[in-house]
């Protein structure tokens, strides 16, 4: 299953080993891990709660992986995204892409992450010493996703 939404943590080494297993054609593997920071917009973050829209989440990420496979020469991709209550230093998201060469693996990994940030239905709520607040979408994320459109 190339897309998993889960509350529990993940082990990137294990996931990478599983994705690579038995495929000697793989010459490159690119990965990204997103992590909870302890500061956002100048305030201390004590906890972060991630919510998603079940059904659409899996479908939208599978679609993003499908687009990546159509644009770059890659073998496979895996996305694990956590939901629920997370603390600073906790892992949030893992993206792994395998391919024959690094260029396509790097590009596809970054593309998947940029598209996930603007198209997959997740929302973060932060707990700060001042109380809880929903994280606002960033214009920089839209710009990051948009540049892939210009190239396409």
């Amino acid at each position, binding site marked *: 299953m190339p897309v998993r939404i889960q509350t529990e943590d993940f082990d990137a080494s294990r996931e990478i080993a599983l994705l690579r297993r038995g495929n000697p054609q793989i010459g490159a593997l690119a990965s990204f891990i*997103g992590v909870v920071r302890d500061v956002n917009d100048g305030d201390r973050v004590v906890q972060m709660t*991630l*919510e*998603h*829209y079940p*059904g*659409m989440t899996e*479908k*939208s990420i599978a679609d993003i992986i499908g687009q990546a496979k159509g644009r770059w020469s890659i073998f496979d991709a895996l996305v694990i*995204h956590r939901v629920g209550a997370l603390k600073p230093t906790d892992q*949030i*998201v893992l993206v792994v892409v395998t391919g024959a060469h690094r260029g396509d693996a790097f590009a596809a990994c970054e593309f998947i*992450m940029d598209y*996930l*940030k*603007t*198209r*997959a*239905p*997740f*929302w*973060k*709520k932060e707990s700060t010493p001042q109380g809880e607040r*929903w*994280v*606002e*979408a*960033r214009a920089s994320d839209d710009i990051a996703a948009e540049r892939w459109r210009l190239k396409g």
Partner: protein
Amino acid sequence: MVTVVYCARLREALGKASEQMALPSNLCDLAALRALLRSRGGAWAKELADGNLVRAAVNHEMAHADAIIKDGDEIAFFPPVTGG
């Protein structure tokens, strides 16, 4: 009937996670549904105001205001996403 889902900040502000609605016969797209919900007033008028960035999905796919909706659809309204 359609199912309308509200996520994240919208769910909290509207006090509702989802509802079943009968579509008026003349209602055919997302913009019209949003206007109908807005006409409930209060938080609905405020949260779904035209100036607010509200995203929508029809049957789990991101959709624009002119997306056609029909009986049996699942429609969702939510703020811009902030995952990753």
